[in-house]
């Protein structure tokens, strides 16, 4: 374990600030603000595995039998496993679901050495799973010791790994009681009952086994993967309540979550109806999505049909893949953005006082998405102009009429959408071939891996190498990051933060377990353009009274601990 000496905590009302540890000597740190980068300039540069050491090769175990799970696998998680201030990377492998050619998944954990270099510490860390078929992961401190733990979702048993604080992990699945034994996809650690312990919400896809596999066809009769609706086997989600003693209890039925099933892929968390309790939104594939509203008494009600976020505006279910809860219009309400199948276009459900409207605008984040099948996604201000951008990891699930990559009929380009104003985006063309090269992208994790203050990306490719896309946007403005902690120094989740800088206000929620089967940088990142500082930051904690911090200096990571700020009015 390496703890950075450069982190200097500043106690007091301002919270704490720290310079980014391990600034990358290769890339000039934090260039001064300048004009917006031209669209022809690359925003991301793919760091080759030979340089980064991030040499993970995903395998879905495809054997030509078109077994459904092969098409959906591939998640990735960012975790600072040794609390050295550098984000490490967990790559979730598939394995094989072909009973004739069994193979256990080879998940791998890479330790960040700094300077965008990684070393494989899988064996040492003991994050090894002997069976099952890997899908994704959620990172969170379930035991409240301030060290991040790992939950891996699979077809088969899921696994929970407790961080032992020495670079190794202990598989505590059985003891904790969180195996599930279904086909789990995304998962999220979230304190739904506000008792100070992170509970665990697990999304399941369909009730599948090789025995129920069938033959499906597309494009005039070519053999292809099936749609989930072919199986008529939606699965229920599972909610585990954290008892606070290292174990969980399955409260799915008690919470009412067993009353509606779905082909679940993605999950987003947040207080969507503003009643002070954390809710869950599940993106279902070819079925109505679910909005599980927390009643505050341990029970949830799926109110998506009435609230307007189950179906599109015409009442048609779409193929929900990844989802994030993000304030797209930057006005203090959590919208829902869901990636979809080719032809459907990605969808924005705009939050209007707890009800949602399926919005399509010519310059919205969904514009230009119709030709693609989206999976992982991340809103982040990649170029620090105080306007969030969007990256969508695309990859087909069915054969298409054209084939951009001669080697893989499911490969297609991913897309970068530059923020141009609140709720407005434009597709960046020619932003560097690295982020547009065809692939079958699935999970995506966003975070500052080289601690230069800019958000990098790790994109998982089905049956392909993981892509480490380093942010090289040339004309970045200023930035700052916030590390939210509860009074005990544990990561504080689902806080809603407004940051005031340069005359504008930006909103973020701290909810790293979202997207598609992936887990992001837990720190909140803001680009602030030419502003020198954030004038003030208001944090609406999930479990504590709202507080105000600031001013906060730019180009730094600030630790904001609940109970150390100024009281802020409720809103």
């Amino acid at each position, binding site marked *: 374990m390496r703890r950075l000496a450069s982190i200097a905590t500043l106690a007091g009302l301002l919270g704490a600030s720290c310079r980014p540890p391990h600034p990358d000597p290769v890339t000039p740190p934090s260039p001064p603000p300048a004009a917006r980068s031209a669209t022809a300039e690359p925003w991301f540069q793919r760091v080759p595995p030979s340089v980064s050491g991030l040499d993970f090769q995903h395998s879905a175990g495809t054997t030509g039998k078109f077994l459904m799970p092969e098409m959906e696998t591939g998640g990735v998680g960012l975790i600072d496993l040794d609390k050295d201030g550098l984000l490490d990377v967990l790559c979730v492998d598939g394995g094989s679901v072909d009973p004739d050619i069994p193979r256990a998944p080879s998940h791998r954990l890479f330790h960040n050495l700094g300077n965008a270099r990684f070393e494989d510490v899988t064996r040492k860390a003991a994050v090894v799973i002997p069976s099952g078929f890997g899908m994704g992961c959620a990172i969170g401190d379930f035991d409240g010791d301030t060290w991040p733990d790992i939950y891996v979702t699979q077809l088969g048993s899921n696994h929970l790994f407790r961080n032992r604080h020495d670079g190794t992990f202990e598989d505590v699945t059985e003891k904790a009681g969180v195996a599930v034994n279904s086909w789990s996809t995304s998962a999220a650690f979230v304190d739904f009952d506000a008792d100070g312990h992170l509970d665990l919400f697990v999304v399941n896809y369909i009730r599948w086994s090789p025995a129920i596999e069938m033959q499906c066809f597309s*494009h005039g009769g070519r053999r292809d993967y099936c749609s989930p609706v072919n199986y008529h086997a939606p699965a229920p989600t599972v909610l585990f309540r954290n008892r606070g003693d290292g174990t969980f209890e399955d409260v799915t039925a008690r919470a009412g979550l067993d009353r509606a099933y779905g082909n679940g892929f993605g999950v987003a968390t947040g207080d969507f109806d503003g009643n002070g309790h954390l809710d869950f939104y599940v993106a279902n594939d070819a079925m109505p999505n679910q909005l599980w509203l927390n009643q505050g008494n341990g029970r949830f009600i799926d109110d998506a049909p009435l609230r307007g976020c189950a179906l599109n505006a015409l009442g*048609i279910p779409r193929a929900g893949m990844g989802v994030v809860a993000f304030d797209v219009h930057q006005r203090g309400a959590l919208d829902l953005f869901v990636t979809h199948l080719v032809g459907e276009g990605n969808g924005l459900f705009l939050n209007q006082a707890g009800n949602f409207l399926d919005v399509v605008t010519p310059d919205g984040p969904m514009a230009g998405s119709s030709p693609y099948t989206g999976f992982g996604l991340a809103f982040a201000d990649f170029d620090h102009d105080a306007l969030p951008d969007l990256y969508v990891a695309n990859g087909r699930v069915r054969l298409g009429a054209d084939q951009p990559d001669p080697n893989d009929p499911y490969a297609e380009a991913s897309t970068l959408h530059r923020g141009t104003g609140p709720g407005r985006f434009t597709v960046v063309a020619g932003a560097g071939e690295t982020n547009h090269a065809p692939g079958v992208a699935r999970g995506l994790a966003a975070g500052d891996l080289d601690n230069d203050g800019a958000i990098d990306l790790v994109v998982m490719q089905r049956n392909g190498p993981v892509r480490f896309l380093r942010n090289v946007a040339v004309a970045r403005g200023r930035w700052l990051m916030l590390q939210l902690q509860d009074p005990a120094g544990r990561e504080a989740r689902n806080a809603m933060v407004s940051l005031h800088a340069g005359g504008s206000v930006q909103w973020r929620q701290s909810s790293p377990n979202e997207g598609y089967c992936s887990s992001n940088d837990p720190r909140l990142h803001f680009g602030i353009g030419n502003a020198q500082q954030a004038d003030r930051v208001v944090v609406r904690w999930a479990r504590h009274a709202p507080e105000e911090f600031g001013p906060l200096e730019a180009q730094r990571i600030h630790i904001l601990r609940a109970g150390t700020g100024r009281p802020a009015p409720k809103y």
Partner: protein
Amino acid sequence: MPSPASQPRTPTPSRRRIHGLLGALAAAALVAVTLHLARRPPLLPVVAPARPESLDPQLRDHLQRLASLVADSPRDPARRATLALAFAANGLWPEARQAFLDVVRMAPDEPLARLHAAVALQEKPDDQAALAEFEALARDFPNFAPAWYRVGEAALRLGNLTNAESAFSRLSQLAPQEWRGPAGLGEVRLRAGKPGEALPFLERALAIDRSARPAHFLLGQALRAVGRTNEARIALALGAATTRHPMPDGWSERAPEHMKLLPDQLAQADELGRMGRPDLALQLLQGALKFHPDHPGLLNQLAVASNRAGRPQQGLALLDAVLAKDPKAVAPRITRSHALVLLGRAEDALAEARRAATDSPRTAQAHLAVANALLALERDAEAAQALRLALDADPANADIHVELASVLWRNLSDAPAAVEVLSKALQLNPALASAHLQLGLLQQHVGDIAAARATLASLEIVAPQSPELRELRQAIARP
């Protein structure tokens, strides 16, 4: 003196006139032929599928037949259009696009060819380019209603509310009995954040066609936005989980007859069976059987259609063949159980259904088959238990709730339990006419006429032209 034959003759003036006339005639003929040839449709190659070897054999056969009809009469745009339609009906959009464009070249005055060429582009998908083509078509054929519908729909997809509004307005003028015009105008206002203004348009759309589910769904959103939550809940339920409903035209209505992919035909057959036309379903499936003689799904669907046609014995042989190859197959076992019930062999049916439920305990249909067989054996309490297991497997299925309520009330005389189950069904789907009917009949049965009338009033809103409403009306009118 040279003979006339050996010496060049000097034309006389009359001969010169004749020669000139002949020349002029020849020239005119040449011009006429040239014009005729120019006006004839160009001789274009027949569009062929990109990967014929990978096509479904039935589809390949169908396309080959249509292609040879085109080859027989290559200047016939109607035959080309049929081929194009067959490509489109089976999702071969690049080929469909090319074939429709060929029709456009051969018959430039036919707006449907341009319309469907643009639809193929939209399915590529290239929404922006398709919108441009729809707009050009609407400009060139300003009285062609389907073009305005497509402009409106494509513009809405791209979030272009201004273009969508003018297109749907024009559609409403051209086709006042087309619900998509006012529905589109309502959607435009809804998306513009004016739900109150959307309401009259959506109500007008439903006045034109009560079965327009997207209009119900849009209405539900508008009602919710103006705070009429209870009405919204019903309208949303009436419109939920639908599919795309493009405005039909003379060509698109012919598309189903060209759908030759097996999954599409199985779905078509199932729909025909549900509509009470199992004979047509059998005919359709028999056509597919020639190309897929061993396909288990097709054989099972044939047996389902045979059951529906009242000929369960025919289906049994097919199912036996499927189960002999795959004894673990659940669907054919369920179908077999239903066939055995129809044949009066309820004990055998129960054994078959139980095996399906054991093999696949999370499949609701297996438990329904168990319940079906138990009801035939008049073991009603066990049937209710099997229905509860079906609900465990599919808890959000309102139809199973209605089945359970029916058994609880009619077979087990447990009216209170039936009411409770029906209430759950209506929570899940407030627009479910069968649940309203059961509840109303039950209320009338127990003498709660006021409640029955209230249920009737709900059913009048939910399903004003339904057989369920007629039945409840008659029941309540009886002394």
